[in-house]
């Protein structure tokens, strides 16, 4: 068996494994722990320079309450949802269609189109910032939720198509041929055979795109100006304070802002079913 179970190794190795693993874990989680601890620290601690020590008292309740009272974070979170959910639906939905087309149909420029989708992913998006801003301004989409959604969806569809095309390509092609011989239309083949089998891919991609778009800061600051449009990542700026940075509030807001992607993961978790195509072909 490979890898060899740790229980079968010599005692000294087992012991050091068990001792080192928690240490590695803590080092790994240190940034997250730091943010969590800071978010329950009273502001006086930070003023006194107690950045990494034990908090002098638990100030979690007042910090988190103050985040919601002193900023429009609720509104910004709503904005984030308004941007992220349509983007996920748009990008994943479109890529199911493009992925199906590229995986199933043979046409002359199939590979060329596919490589264009792939190549788009290699363009660093920073160099697109100015053209995209100009474009959205002229289209009247600057500083609108629609603009953000359209831009994010367009940008994410490339990667999603790569993902979906390869996933569909790995499905047994005989399933599609079999349905064709039975006289099932192409749309019904997509809807009733391919789409149900893509569930794990759709779930995985949704979580990925949700997290990515939710956490986006770059486009949120470039394409959103007004508070009506600003997503939570950009909106947190408000908590910076006029004269000093209120780290205890910013960290508390970060934790709040990080919750939806985590929730999304657990929500989608049951759809990550391995071996959905089990039994389709020989066994």
């Amino acid at each position, binding site marked *: 068996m490979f890898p060899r179970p740790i229980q079968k190794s010599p005692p000294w190795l087992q012991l050091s494994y068990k001792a080192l693993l928690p240490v590695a874990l803590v080092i790994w989680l240190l940034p997250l722990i730091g943010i969590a601890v800071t978010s329950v620290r009273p502001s006086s601690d930070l003023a006194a320079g107690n950045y990494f020590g034990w908090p002098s008292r638990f100030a979690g309740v007042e910090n988190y309450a103050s985040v919601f009272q002193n900023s429009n974070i609720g509104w910004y979170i709503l904005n984030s949802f308004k941007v992220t959910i349509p983007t996920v639906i748009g990008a994943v939905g479109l890529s199911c269609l493009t992925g199906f087309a590229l995986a199933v149909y043979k046409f002359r420029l199939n590979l060329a189109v596919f490589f264009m989708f792939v190549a788009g992913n290699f363009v660093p998006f920073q160099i697109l910032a100015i053209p995209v801003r100009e474009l959205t301004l002229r289209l009247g989409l600057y500083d609108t939720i629609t603009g953000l959604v359209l831009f994010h969806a367009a940008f994410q569809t490339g990667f999603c198509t790569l993902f979906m095309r390869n996933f569909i390509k790995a499905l047994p092609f005989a*399933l599609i041929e079999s349905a064709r011989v039975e006289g099932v239309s192409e749309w019904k083949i997509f809807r009733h055979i391919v789409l149900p089998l893509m569930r794990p891919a759709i779930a995985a991609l949704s979580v990925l795109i949700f997290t990515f778009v939710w956490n986006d800061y770059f486009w949120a600051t470039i394409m959103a100006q007004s508070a009506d449009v600003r997503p939570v990542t950009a909106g947190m700026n408000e908590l910076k304070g006029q004269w000093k940075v209120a780290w205890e509030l910013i960290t508390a807001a970060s934790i709040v802002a990080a919750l939806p992607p985590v929730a999304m993961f657990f929500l989608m978790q049951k759809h990550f079913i391995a071996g959905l195509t089990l039994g389709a072909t020989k066994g």
Partner: protein
Amino acid sequence: MADVTLRAITKSFGDVRIIKGIDLEIADGEFCVFVGPSGCGKSTLLRMIAGLEDITSGSLSIGGREMADVEPAGRGVAMVFQSYALYPHMTVRDNISFGLRMTGHKPADIEARLRRAADMLQLTHLLDRKPSQLSGGQRQRVAIGRAIVREPQVFLFDEPLSNLDAALRVQMRTEIGKLHADLRATMIYVTHDQVEAMTMAGKIVVLNAGAVEQAGSPLELYHRPRNLFVAGFIGSPRMNFVAGTAAPAAHGRIEVVLGDGARVLLDGRGATVTAAQPVTLGIRPEHLTAGGGGLRATVRLAEYLGSETMFYAQLADGSGIAVKADGLAKAAAGSTLDIGINPAACHLFDKDGVAVIHGDLTR
């Protein structure tokens, strides 16, 4: 009527010709088996009949209708795939009825057809299972059920049994045979297994490198192979081929001198040779006997199968020869074996591999 007629059918992928002009007539209700080595184009030909591959040139008609440009669904065919191709997220019931539901059949009609197919294939108690909960043989039956409910004119099978174990394969073979007797539909069956072909077929089509080598009934192919390829492909263990020289002899007979000097006198049966010429003598292992005069060989390997004994031996000129002897025959490796040869069972092939004399014992 659902006879299938192929006229000068060809298929090319770019410059490569996969199917090189095939003419074939399959009668209504016939069980026709395409057999041949890997890559001979038998699956491609089947997929062309199904409409899953384009026909480069030639004409295909099913039941008298030209089908070359008709969509797969419009051809009245149903196909059973080697991999079964069951929809993994659907129950057996949904798998079998999917095609009917998607093409607007009435629910009562679907239910009736489903019941009939399930009864025929003993699937009734499995209707609510998913494919992953079925054994290989059950999956195969579901795949066949999916074909039956469409009530097609022509059934197409693409190596349907090659994923099953030996015992199940024999069982499914008889089930498909029974199905053919019950449905009386035209069936075209692709396999690389010549035992399957011999046992199931009404007509065998031997394909090699994209062309038909010979088409005929199983016994016709066994007794009267048209050339070396068919002679070597049909029959198990395969026919022995020994190189020699043929020369005319008295009374219309032909004398063949084999590489090791042994002489075999064959009845010409109308065939003549004008002068000495190189030939290949073909004789099946089951038509040779251990003991008796004729050939002398050195045993290399003996297989005792109980019911019979196989001797793999070597003639003086180095060519190998297999003998299927009685189950009680014994010979040690390295010992000398006298092989009796029945001239009436000998096939003779000219230097191009075309049969000159058929060793047809049924005449």
